[in-house]
């Protein structure tokens, strides 16, 4: 889906949201690298095409920079890179999914938005404990579709470094 199509589909899904059966939730799924991921549709604020961002000094590699979204300055996180892949080679067809978490907004750089999924809670498999700790921390579960697995992102954990209270990150003790 292009950014425009994704926005339309999302809007429609939200409008139809009331019709989802109890115990069912809607998710926006997208691809980053070779993988499929999904987030709760209610946390998605906006979907827009990739534009050049302003990079920030001395930040983790996956923090691509900041973007002006109608007067607000948002950090843009490279999802693929955040999850251990390399930096995304951005093109105009890449998409930024803007999600809200706590009272903050963060943009996720992904390859493309794929679908809006209606999923009942019992279809979501927990993350097996044998998975590496890193993965266990940022996925809240897996949804096995007909042909592939979609990882449900736990945004709070995924973005914990970005939304953390400052005291945790800013002070390096005097050596």
């Amino acid at each position, binding site marked *: 889906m292009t950014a425009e199509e994704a926005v339309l589909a999302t809007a429609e899904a939200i409008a139809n949201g009331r019709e989802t059966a109890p115990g069912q939730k809607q998710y926006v799924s997208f691809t980053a690298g070779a993988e499929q991921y999904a987030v709760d549709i209610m946390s998605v604020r906006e979907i827009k095409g990739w534009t*050049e*961002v*302003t*990079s*920030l*000094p*001395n*930040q*983790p*590699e*996956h923090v691509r*920079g*900041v*973007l*002006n979204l109608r*007067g*607000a*300055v*948002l*950090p843009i996180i490279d999802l693929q890179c955040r999850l251990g892949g390399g930096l995304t080679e951005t093109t105009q067809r890449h998409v930024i999914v803007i999600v809200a978490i706590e009272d*903050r*907004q*963060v943009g996720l750089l992904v390859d493309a938005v794929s679908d809006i999924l209606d999923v009942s809670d019992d279809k979501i498999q927990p993350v097996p404990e044998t998975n590496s700790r*890193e993965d266990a921390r940022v996925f809240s579960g897996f949804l096995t579709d007909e042909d592939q697995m979609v990882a449900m992102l736990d945004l709070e954990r995924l973005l914990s*470094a*970005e939304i*953390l209270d*400052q*005291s945790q*990150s*800013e*002070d390096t*003790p*005097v*050596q």
Partner: protein
Amino acid sequence: MNELEQFKQTFFEECDELLQRFEEVAVTLVAGANDAEVLDDIFRTVHSIKAGAGAFKFQRLATYCHEFENYMDLVRGGKLQLVEGDPDLVVQAGDILQDLVNAARVGVEAEAALEDDILEILRNKTGAPQSQGGSDDTAEVSAVTTSGFSIKFRPHRAMYETANEPQLLLHALASLGEMTVSTDLQALPDLIKLDPLEGYLAWSIELRGEGIAEDSVREVFEFVDGDCDLEISALDAGVDEADSAPVESQAAEIEPAIVPGNAPAADAKTVAAATQSTSIRVDLERIDRLVDMVGELVIAQAMALDSLSELVDIRHVNQLQALEDLTMRTRQLQEGVMAVRMQPLKALFSRFPRVVRDLSKKLEKNVRLELEGEATEVDKTIIEELSDPLTHMIRNCMDHGLETPVERTESGKPEQGVVKLSAEHRNGRILIRVADDGRGLSLTKVRQKAIDNGLIDESAELSKEEIEALIFMPGFSTASEISDVSGRGVGMDVVRRNIQKLGGRVTVESDEGKGSTFTLALPLTLAVLDGMLISVAGERFVVPLSTIVETVCPDPSAIRQLPDGGSVMSIRGETIRLIDVCGAMSIDRSGQPEPLRKLAVIVETEFGRRIGLVVDELLGQQQVVIKSLEANYRNIPGVAGTAILGDGRVRLILDIDGLSSMDVPRHDAGLQTKSPSDTNRVASGGQSV
């Protein structure tokens, strides 16, 4: 919200203002001296709240105010002297008044019997002198009253506009005595000329009855004073003098008796009238919306200017002039809007005499608070956010900084300690200082504490400044025992964090044995900044214009490399440190040509230290709208905030003080300089997991 609710809200807002003022003045009361101005102020506060409480049927509040008012009236009239303990009583009574107002606001019943004790004391105070001074009162009353009054009352249009109803006033008058009223229709025009909004009627009233005080007659008209013609004259009470004379002679007689009561009332009126005409209440949200809109306008205007820059040509002189005009006006508009948000610090500072007074009792220390620069204006949001940090710092000064009176005397200091709170504007920022003349920071103790708490290594060699800065580290607390005053687990690190959130900085300077000074440096406003746009390796940054001293193109011979990888420059005999913006902002210069000659922008930090920023190019001056990086992300060392420029792109605003204290990127001789991506990984080590 219905109308009544709105009025209520206004009432409570007024209460807040009044109570704040109360707080401000009440602490200045001292036993043995009845300061008329202060007492009047307090009386007015209580009186106004009483009136509102009555109107909104907050019975308990009204009753309390009534008793309190009675007491204040006697005190301000000089019938009661303030004796030892009375000033505290007034302050306490004010606290309870605040509690009752709060209870009324949220619509709950205040704690039972909350006010009973204080009312008991107030009644005792008022009771005795009232009966004993009763004769006094009646003597006065008999001087003031006559067998009645003749009142001429002509409401103006303004009185109707403020929704006052003459009929109600007349009813109120009728309750005072026997009344005959005649209506004066003279001013009433023909129907065709009648303006339905104009007031044409006037009334002549004769009010008869024994013991009616002129004050109580005037009180009826209290709220319409100034909006009507009002003549009140005493009916001759069988005085055998010419008709007009007695009024005058009586007035002369009365004067001394009623002046104390009347003058302040008139005073209150002028105050009320003045505020009425010069200020309105506006929801802060509306102002913020306006500020935001103007911010967007500034961006739009910058964009327009940007895109029309090719017009710079003699043929378009008119268009350019119009553009120039627009720029100027946009700027004025912005300044005007920002000024709406500015408030003097007085509102904030005035809380502290009380804090100090209460605390000095608790700590059994004799402390004087000195205030300076209260008129300094700062953005309202900043003022609000400063309250907690400042309170904390003042408490800290009093608890840890100042010695006990015994210790002070032993070390040859005056017994009374001084905490000084001052504010001033400097370099487009505001500096607030909290200073005490206490024991100062003990460097050895601070250092030991930091080692004990695992903040530093035992072997660490730190300068005086570095040791002092340790007290702002999370997990540092110097109080060896947790006192209930400042040791609530909240340390100076929280203060620092709060200040940083506002784009400010806190530092401490201390002289062991002589005291310490905490300095807060804050932006005047959180919204706009005059900036110089610079470019480094293709990236653009904003340098706050207020920090720039000059720009030079240094001769290579004037630059010396330091062994630690940094460099210094000599300018007119002064040696200053150079900071390479490219390195500090970890910009990858590969693929970017090195400029032939770099520029050094000489900037001055808050504390007067000069440093040179090495940049490629200056792109020009621009006003930018500051957007916090922390709203959605977090603070980054060396970055004061972000700005959205004319092209819609976000640019980083350099934090001069942050940069000047940043470590020079270290690289050992013989090893290659770390590439930017390496530094990236090092810096992010803790977060990338």
